[in-house]
């Protein structure tokens, strides 16, 4: 009740100086907006990465270790044997050729922009958890001189959807590009490659024995179980030759790195909010000096020291809370905009909102405690300083 009255008086005082009040809570608002936005964007990112991480775990990468000295690469028949396992949704094998690919014969052969040529067998998009961006996939057992480009390879060659189908110069012959894949976050090797069918590679004289790499897409949650039985399934005689890789530990490391950067940024923001608190303290101290006669008047009319102190404390709280609420809205809008641009799920960091508002209350109380104490100590005889 008493607090409410004090807050009302404080509110009236602040409204009487709208610009000054607005500016001093703007500092708090910016600080809190930064906290909410940073935490929100970080969590949105983390969630996005985790989603990708879970998707990655559903794709296994199988390669030959060569430990038992057997034949080089994973045997071709592994595509059939592994493909028959119940939780396996798709398999594909890829083998790198020593071919180059350029837009035309006029480009020097050395200038390949780092694009490799892979001979592929099986459904590569399905097995690497990606899709065709545009055009047509390679047919089953494609023996024709056609190729599908990985997402980055198409970019590097300067081929976009309007140009399809078009020709590229590959190992001294023209090959028709029929499609381009979406990014395959698991298989960077696919992203930077031109894919041709195994039969075509063989008929063109590439010496192929085993598969360089086999990609296995499994049902969600069965990655570990399947990876345990793949070696014996792919190469029953020398299972030790087969290595299976699950999730990418690099992704987890990336999340950790990003979060530690957030920590640094939050520390900076905290300093900013403290500085904003000084702004509030300054505003209130100036108000106390300016309003000495009015404070004396209130004391002459019966206000206690506590009444006056409470009035200035609630003034500080109003500035800080107003700033915190405005900042929360601003920060949340920032997160929304980011999530929309990055087409990720929106996550409002409620603990960030709570922390921001809690910090604002603390800053408000701390910032107004000195002015409040000063105001409360003014004598009632200050009413006599009032000039008409």
């Amino acid at each position, binding site marked *: 009740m008493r607090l409410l009255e004090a807050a009302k008086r404080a509110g009236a005082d602040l409204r009487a100086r709208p610009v000054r009040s607005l500016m001093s809570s703007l500092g708090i608002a910016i600080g809190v907006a930064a906290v909410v936005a940073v935490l929100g964007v970080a969590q949105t990112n983390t969630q996005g990465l985790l989603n990708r991480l879970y998707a990655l775990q559903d794709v296994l990468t199988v390669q030959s270790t060569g430990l038992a000295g057997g034949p080089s690469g994973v045997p071709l028949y592994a595509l059939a044997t592994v493909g028959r396992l119940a939780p396996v949704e798709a398999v594909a094998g890829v083998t790198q050729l020593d071919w180059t690919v350029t837009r035309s014969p006029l480009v020097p052969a050395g200038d390949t922009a780092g694009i490799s040529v892979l001979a592929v067998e099986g459904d590569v998009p399905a097995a690497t958890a990606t899709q065709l961006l545009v055009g047509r996939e390679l047919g089953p057992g494609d023996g024709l001189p056609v190729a599908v480009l990985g997402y980055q390879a198409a970019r590097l060659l300067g081929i976009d959807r309007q140009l399809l189908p078009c020709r590229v110069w590959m190992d001294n012959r023209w090959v028709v590009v029929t499609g381009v894949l979406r990014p395959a976050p698991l298989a960077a090797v696919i992203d930077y490659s031109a894919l041709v069918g195994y039969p075509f590679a063989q008929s063109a004289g590439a010496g192929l024995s085993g598969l360089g790499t086999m990609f296995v897409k499994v049902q969600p949650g069965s990655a570990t179980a399947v990876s345990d039985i793949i070696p014996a399934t792919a190469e029953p005689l020398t299972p030790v030759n087969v290595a299976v890789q699950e999730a990418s530990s690099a992704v987890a490391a990336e999340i950790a790195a990003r979060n530690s950067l957030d920590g640094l940024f939050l520390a900076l923001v905290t300093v900013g909010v403290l500085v904003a608190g000084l702004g509030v303290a300054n505003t209130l101290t100036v108000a106390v000096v300016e309003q000495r006669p009015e404070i004396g008047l209130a004391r002459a009319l019966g206000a206690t020291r506590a009444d006056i102190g409470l009035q200035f404390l609630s003034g500080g709280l109003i500035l800080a809370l107003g700033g915190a609420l405005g900042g929360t809205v601003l920060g949340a809008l920032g997160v929304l905009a980011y999530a929309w641009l990055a087409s990720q799920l929106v996550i409002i960091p409620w603990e960030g909102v709570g922390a921001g508002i809690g910090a604002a209350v603390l800053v408000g109380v701390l910032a107004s405690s000195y002015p409040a104490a000063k105001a409360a100590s003014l004598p009632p005889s200050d009413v*006599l300083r009032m000039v008409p």
Partner: protein
Amino acid sequence: MTAVPALELEKIGMEFGRTVRVRALSEVSLSIAPGEVCALTGPTGSGKSTLLAIMGTLERPSAGRVRVEGVDVATARDRTLARLRAQRIGFVFQTFQLHPRLSALGNVEQGLAYSAVSPSERRERAVAALADVGLADRAEHLPTQLSGGEQQRVAIARALAKEPSILLADEPTGNLDQAAAEMVVDLLLEGAGRQRALVLVTHNDALAGRLPRVVRLERGRLVADGSNAAA
């Protein structure tokens, strides 16, 4: 009859300043009964305002003892003095001392803001007090939109709305023309009496002559305290 005096001052002394001492009051003793009406006169600088501030607990004297309705000001807690000012003492100042950002009604309401009066009753009493001084139609006006006489009437309404037992007025007509001054004095004298004491500071002898008791200060000392046959 041993009624507690409204105001009781014993050998009040007051000095201002730490390095350069200014002695504003010396050994002033004075007692004012409940409902008593009294003029306080003296030349400028004689200590009238200082004495009034001490009576109203705005200042603590540097020597002597003050009792307001039996409460010893020297030993009372801040809250006790604040309650006295909120409920028992009404001030009227020479330069009005209205809150510049509050309307006439808001100023009168502020006079009740620190006593145990509900907001709705506060409003009711403020409206009535403003009507009593003839300013019902100026309730929403700010002090700057009122004449000096009107501002002083708002200040009187503010002082009377709390129905104080002591009314302290420091040269309330000092800044007013003749007509406005008369209206203000009439309102103060109407408000006083019965159970309400009034101490009215003035250097206007004609005005002082209208009151039943006149106390005179000179250079901080009480030089005369007599009843007025004419009143």
